[in-house]
């Protein structure tokens, strides 16, 4: 198999194949489920093979349809499809209780397909197209339960992300006006964008990755089924924002120091405000969602902490920051996916999301509780879980250039510990309230355990992911082609 | 200059007829006023060397249209004397302002003295008659006329034939 074919398969199998799932569902639900899993695993396998190949693959069949698989794209694609695969597996049982399953699988696989398209696209318009497809699918998925509140929240998320995306589109148009092309491979690396343009593009990124001031849709989206929230938070949606940030502002363009300051200020505010909100809110999924908002800010911190200078000590810090941010994407994805899937088990078995009315579940749900704790520890950055390394690296990179920002994020890290422990203790420890629910099904519990174990393994065996990330960063910064 | 006096007289009459048309309280008089306006327009069209259009105006606008309107008024207007008196007073109130507006507008237009110094296009050859023009140059309009008349005919059928649903 050639690399180009792998690339096509990774993008086209889930995007185009997803349309088959409703048909398959009419024949047999089991067939549909397996097909969905296969379609999610295809990009994983293809991306893994591309990673093994190690070459940057570019295909350009026509016009704006230009795909490129560099290390960054492959890395993101692997994370997304890996976590998505676990989520789809989890859905087999979770979603079997509800209506509209055909649409669910269609949208989930299309969602991932769009993500694949997005990460592999080398043309800004193509990227934008996939970007909006993810907005559409997330809209349908958030409103999955169809109650008026659900649909309202789905609309909110759709509107906010589309508003941001349109601002970004204006930014792209300005880029086109400035550079004469939207082909990322033809824009000279390190091009500096005017402030207005950078802000426009940033607005899209911030709205997608749920960062202040466009973040409130994400907690509201907690009305979605838990696998969907896991997908939104861990695998696909909010990661799109940070991926595009990396793709545009690390690989292609360069932020000025002033623009970096803006990003960092927004990220710092985002980290603190959402952490504060997570401390106050009482809805299990909203709290975890606020936690995502807060953690995404750390990713931005890593990306924007250092000027991307080549050579010297500055380069070391930049490598550290970008690498930390990429690792953060991986670690946060694994852990946050696990947290939401745990929340899904709790929610489905207790029919309750209010943490003040939960308690003592560790007695009946030991595996879920331990998995939750492990994932929470990873998010907090406690060794030996994977989150430790990424958190250290982003804070370290910030400390190199902007110690004050690093200090603010340290406060954010404090608050992470506080609110995650608050959730964990209120839900799983303490006095049981009412009848204790049963543990989830083997499949679902297995999925959360898998994610927790992966979080742990990612820390204990940090070497392989760190090597991949290191190579990716070197390529991103143009140090090694 | 005498010709221009005639022009002005015709214009004044035309405007007066139009005013009467819209300001009279009785519908039938209004329709008659419309016919009169059309007749005066016909005269003006003759004055402007457009006999065919004038004839058309006379036959259609002073004849057919008032006929249709009269029947429509007959079908709809039922009004007692009280109502009529009330409406007369209302009309007087509403249209008292109209002559003032018209006078002001006329004065303004005359005073404005819009420059009419643009070059006129070359006239077409003397051979161009209305018939040849219509047939040679305005075929599309003819088709349009046919279509619009057909549409109106269908409209009458659709709108008026049969009971309301």
């Amino acid at each position, binding site marked *: 198999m050639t690399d180009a074919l792998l690339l096509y398969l990774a993008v086209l199998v889930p995007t185009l194949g997803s349309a088959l799932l409703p048909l398959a569902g009419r024949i047999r639900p089991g067939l549909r489920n397996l097909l969905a899993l296969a379609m999610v695993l295809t990009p994983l396998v293809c991306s893994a093979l591309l990673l093994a190949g190690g070459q940057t693959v570019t295909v350009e069949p026509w016009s704006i349809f230009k795909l490129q698989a560099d290390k960054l794209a492959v890395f993101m694609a692997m994370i997304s499809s890996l976590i998505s695969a676990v989520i789809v597996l989890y859905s087999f049982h979770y979603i079997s209780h509800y209506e509209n399953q055909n649409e669910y699988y269609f949208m989930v696989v299309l969602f991932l397909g769009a993500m694949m398209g997005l990460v592999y696209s080398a043309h800004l318009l193509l990227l934008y197209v996939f970007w909006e497809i993810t907005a559409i699918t997330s809209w349908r998925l958030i409103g999955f339960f169809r109650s008026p509140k659900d649909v309202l929240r789905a609309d909110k998320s759709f509107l906010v992300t589309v508003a941001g995306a349109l601002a970004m589109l204006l930014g792209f148009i300005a880029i086109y006006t400035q550079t004469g092309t939207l082909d990322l491979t033809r824009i000279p690396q390190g091009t500096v964008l005017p402030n207005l343009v950078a802000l426009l593009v940033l607005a899209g990124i911030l709205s997608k990755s749920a960062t202040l001031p466009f973040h409130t849709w994400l907690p509201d989206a907690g009305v979605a089924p838990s696998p969907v929230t896991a997908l939104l938070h861990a695998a696909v949606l909010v990661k799109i924002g940070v991926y595009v940030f990396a793709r545009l502002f690390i690989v292609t363009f360069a932020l000025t120091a002033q623009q970096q300051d803006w990003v960092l200020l927004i990220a710092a505010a985002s980290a603190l405000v959402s952490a504060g909100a997570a401390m106050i809110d009482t809805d299990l999924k909203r709290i975890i969602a606020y936690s995502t908002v807060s953690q995404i800010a750390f990713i931005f911190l890593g990306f924007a902490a250092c000027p991307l200078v080549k050579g010297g000590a500055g380069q070391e810090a930049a490598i550290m920051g970008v690498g930390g941010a990429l690792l953060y994407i991986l670690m946060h994805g694994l852990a946050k996916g696990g947290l939401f899937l745990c929340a899904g088990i709790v929610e489905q078995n207790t029919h309750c999301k209010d943490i003040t009315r939960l308690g003592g579940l560790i007695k009946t749900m030991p595996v879920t509780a331990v998995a939750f704790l492990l994932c929470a520890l990873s998010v907090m950055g406690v060794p030996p879980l994977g989150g430790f390394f990424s958190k250290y690296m982003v804070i370290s990179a910030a400390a190199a250039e902007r110690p004050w920002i690093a200090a603010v994020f340290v406060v954010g890290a404090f608050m992470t510990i506080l609110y995650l422990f608050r959730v964990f203790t209120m839900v799983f420890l303490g006095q049981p309230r009412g009848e204790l629910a049963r543990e989830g099904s083997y499949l679902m519990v297995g999925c959360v355990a898998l994610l927790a174990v992966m979080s742990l393994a990612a820390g204990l065996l940090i070497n392989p992911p760190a090597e991949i990330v290191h190579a990716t960063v070197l390529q991103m910064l143009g140090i090694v082609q | 200059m005498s010709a221009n006096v005639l022009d002005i007289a015709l214009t004044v009459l035309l405007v007066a007829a139009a005013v009467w048309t819209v300001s009279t309280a009785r519908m039938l008089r209004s329709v008659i006023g419309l016919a009169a306006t059309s007749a005066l327009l016909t005269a003006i069209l003759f004055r402007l060397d457009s006999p065919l*259009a004038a004839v058309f105006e006379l036959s259609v606008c002073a004849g057919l249209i008032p006929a249709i309107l009269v029947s429509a008024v007959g079908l709809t207007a039922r009004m007692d004397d009280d109502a009529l008196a009330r409406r007369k007073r209302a009309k007087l109130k509403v249209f008292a302002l109209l002559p003032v507006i018209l006078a002001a507008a006329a004065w303004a237009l005359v005073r404005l003295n819009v420059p*009419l110094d643009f070059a006129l296009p070359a006239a077409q050859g003397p051979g161009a008659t209305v018939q040849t023009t219509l047939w040679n140059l305005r075929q599309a309009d003819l088709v349009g006329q046919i279509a619009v008349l057909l549409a109106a005919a269908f409209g009458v059928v659709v709108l008026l034939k049969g009971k309301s649903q």
Partner: protein
Amino acid sequence: MTPQAALIFGTFAVGAVLVLIVGFYSLLSTRNLIRSIIALEVLTKSVTLLIILAGYTTAQQALAQSLAITLIVIEVAVMVVGVGLVLRIHSQTGSIDTNTVENIKG
């Protein structure tokens, strides 16, 4: 344009504008649907006059007349349909007051 032509043009053009004003004034002030159709007719008079006037001024009577004839035909068609609508409104509401056509709002 010669002064003579300008004078004729000016005279009738002012007349046409005044008729236009009369028509609009009636259209806006009337409470009777048939009268509003009549107002439209008055407006059309003004336009017919303007077209013929333009033809006369540019010595293009043939063209202008053919346009005017077409215009008159269309005028009739529109009027017929308009009257048909009014009659239908009358047969359904028993009134031809303009307040019968003020129900679609917002």
